[in-house]
């Protein structure tokens, strides 16, 4: 197991390299110039050129890439070209809101979607099953920003129960943090709930048709125990897979949720950096996202062994 984890961790290196090359190439061919952003409207071409030199943008692309890669290997993500703030500090500022949003979304999604999927499978073909599936289709079809606006309007503006925007850091108190994160997490959860509930229902239906379930039922095992003790555990592997791969979906969705609810997370940092062509920030954030995604998938692979002891590495 340990050697497997080590191998997987080592395998992230070429993945990161590919991501780095891809991102760097993409930024290279994308029009736009941070020097122009810094220089402003009245700048002469000479001033713009001087800024480009200061930023190292006048260097050949392979030298810039090599320099950046060397710095990354030494843990130096560089500084924002606009305000000089170290990229690592910018990322550190923004990690908490994004991680909070993702964890809260995962928590809400799993705790709602799995029971929904199980119940839908249990009550297959009934009104309850159809209602849950309609909810899932609606949840999957509604864009995050629409759900977000509806929730903010209802619970923030009309009922004044929760703030319509903003983020309170965890160190400023758990309740303010929770109040700030509930609405965006609920908005983002809708798609995720739909996805997980549907896959849970499908895998549960397949599991429920197995011989050992019929045997257990014949032995008089209670329905609750049958569903959650026998069937769900055996249906867990595909569900965990979907949860893991859905993290990518979550990253994309968090960009929207962070914009709608004005959460100062990594998603907004990425958008701002792209709009202002702040290359070091874009590269840093994308690398962080990529590493996170690889690590989440590693965790998912390891979780397989928990749910299915037949799987070993």
């Amino acid at each position, binding site marked *: 197991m340990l050697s497997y984890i080590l191998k997987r961790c080592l395998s992230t290196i070429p993945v990161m390299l590919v991501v780095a090359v891809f991102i760097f190439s993409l930024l290279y061919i994308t*029009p*736009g*110039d941070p020097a*122009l*952003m*810094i*220089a*402003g*409207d*009245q*700048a*002469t*071409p000479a*001033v*713009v050129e*001087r*800024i480009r030199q*200061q930023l190292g943008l006048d260097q050949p692309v392979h030298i810039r890439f090599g320099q950046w890669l060397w710095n990354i290997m030494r843990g130096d993500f560089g500084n*924002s070209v*606009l*305000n*000089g*703030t170290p990229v690592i500090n*910018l990322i550190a*500022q*923004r990690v908490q809101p994004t991680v909070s949003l993702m964890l809260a979304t995962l928590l809400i999604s799993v705790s709602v979607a799995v029971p929904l999927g199980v119940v839908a499978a249990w009550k297959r073909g009934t009104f309850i099953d159809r209602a849950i599936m309609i909810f899932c289709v609606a949840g999957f079809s509604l864009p995050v920003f629409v759900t977000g*606006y509806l929730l*903010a*309007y209802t619970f*923030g*503006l009309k009922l*004044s*129960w*929760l*703030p*319509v*925007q*903003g983020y309170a850091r965890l160190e400023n108190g758990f*309740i303010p943090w*929770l*109040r700030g994160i*509930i609405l965006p997490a609920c908005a983002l959860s809708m798609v995720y709930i739909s996805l997980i509930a549907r896959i849970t229902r499908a895998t549960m239906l397949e599991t429920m048709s197995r011989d050992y379930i019929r045997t257990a039922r014949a032995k008089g095992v209670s329905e609750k125990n049958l569903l959650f003790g026998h069937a769900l555990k055996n249906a867990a592997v595909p569900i965990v897979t979907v949860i893991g791969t859905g993290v990518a979906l979550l990253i994309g969705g968090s960009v929207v949720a962070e*914009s*709608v*609810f*004005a959460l*100062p997370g990594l998603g*907004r*940092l990425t*958008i*701002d950096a792209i*709009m*202002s*062509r*702040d290359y070091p920030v874009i590269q840093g954030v994308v690398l962080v996202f990529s590493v996170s995604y690889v690590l989440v998938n590693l965790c998912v692979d390891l979780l397989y062994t928990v749910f299915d002891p037949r799987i070993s590495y």
Partner: protein
Amino acid sequence: MKRRTFLKGSLAMGAAMGFPRIAPAQQSSVLKFIPSVNLAILDPIANTAAPTRLHGFMVFDTLYGLDSNFVAQPQMAAGHEVSADGLEWRIRLRDELFFHDGEPVRAQDVVASLNRWARRDTFGKTLFGRTDELSAADDKTVVFRLKRPFALLPAALGKVGSNIAVIMPERLAATDPATPVTEVIGSGPFSFVADEYAPGAFVGYNKFDRYVPRADGEVGFSSGPKVVNFDRVEWHVIPDPSTALAAVQSGEMDWWEAPLPDFLGLVEGNPDLTIVQAGSHVMFLRLNHLHPPFDNPEIRRILLSCLDRTAIMQAVGGTGEWRDDIGIYIGSMKSDAGIAETFLARTDFDNVKRELEAAGYKGEPIVMLVSTDIASHMAASQVGEATFRKMGLNIDFQSMDWGTVSQRRTSMEPPENGGWNCFFVMADSEYFLDPATNFLARANGREAWFGWPDSPRIEELTEEWFNAPDEASQLEIARALQLQAWQDVPVVPVGEAKRPGLARSNLKGFAPGFAKFWGVERT
């Protein structure tokens, strides 16, 4: 955990979180402000972006400021003495001026800051082109020795359009003017809280207790007593307009700098909200004079005669306050010379097509750069495009984000090689006050702003304007400049739109022009 325990816990948490209604944010002496865009660069000498200027006026101070009639008034300066021949200006600093690091403001700081500013700002370059020497006679006295009299010296040092002549400590002013300073130390009414700065999300300012407002004058654009009534001002960057509106409606925020005009109807009749004036901006069309067809002055003039400024401004300003009768200057030098005869909004497009052909238009594609991420640019471009097409111009409408437009517009290459022919853009009205601030109306060829208009006559007149002995002469020359502009078309002014802000009704004391945080108080 038992189910009953879980339910009790849930109820308790719900009581703690949900049941109390949200208290308005403005209980303490904190003003919560939503800027129009992110504050990305902190140095108002190195950068011209609108939020950087706003931030600059909070943290830094200037020797002079403009009053509400655009007249320069002493700000950090106690006053000045001008020698009889007009060649020496001695500017005395006010007492009790301190930087946020506790150091007193000295004339040496002023000299270093102005030297840095003049290397970036067009007006500054003009002033320093007429300056023999700038020096500090002592810690409190700055001396300009000029080559020739220059009555606009206070106006240059007090200009409100970027780049603004802010004063910073000498050690920071030694920074290359092309490199933004990252340590923000000024002597303005607010100190910047560096530890809290989260670009794209949050900017914090504390009231600077050692700032002594002027005792005289009235609050103008950047002059007068800067009396701060809040302990703290917070900028919360909210990129989504609907969320920003909800935040002001719910009382979580106090003041939104730039709501969408379409939203103002939604808040009409809401007693908790009030619409405040937050300055204005000018929409203009920029033509590239280097390449066909707009290298041809006759074609440029035909375009002026057809452009429907009313329709464009309707699209840009909506139900807000706007006008479409502006010339190339809108401040003290404004004139109506030639406007009615130039902007005819012609609809006889068959004739127009014949005139264009006679003028030499051969149907070459016209690349219009359109930034789709800025609503006003997009609206003006769409309406403008319709007119271009009716005129028979072969328009190539190229959509992109503002970052790409910013880069493309610097290209002097032909349109087919990545260059361009025209674009609509909006700028703060402070740029259009007079020939000193309106760098867009300059026509000094490749030294000019993107589009590179070249008109020796406009440059001669501009030089004459700078040297004019009095305001009456300046007005006469500005009028001649405008008439010449309709011939050479360095810039096409489309219209001016007021920029409304949205604030909680309990805020009073808003000053004219761009958002200012002094004078404002909560009642």
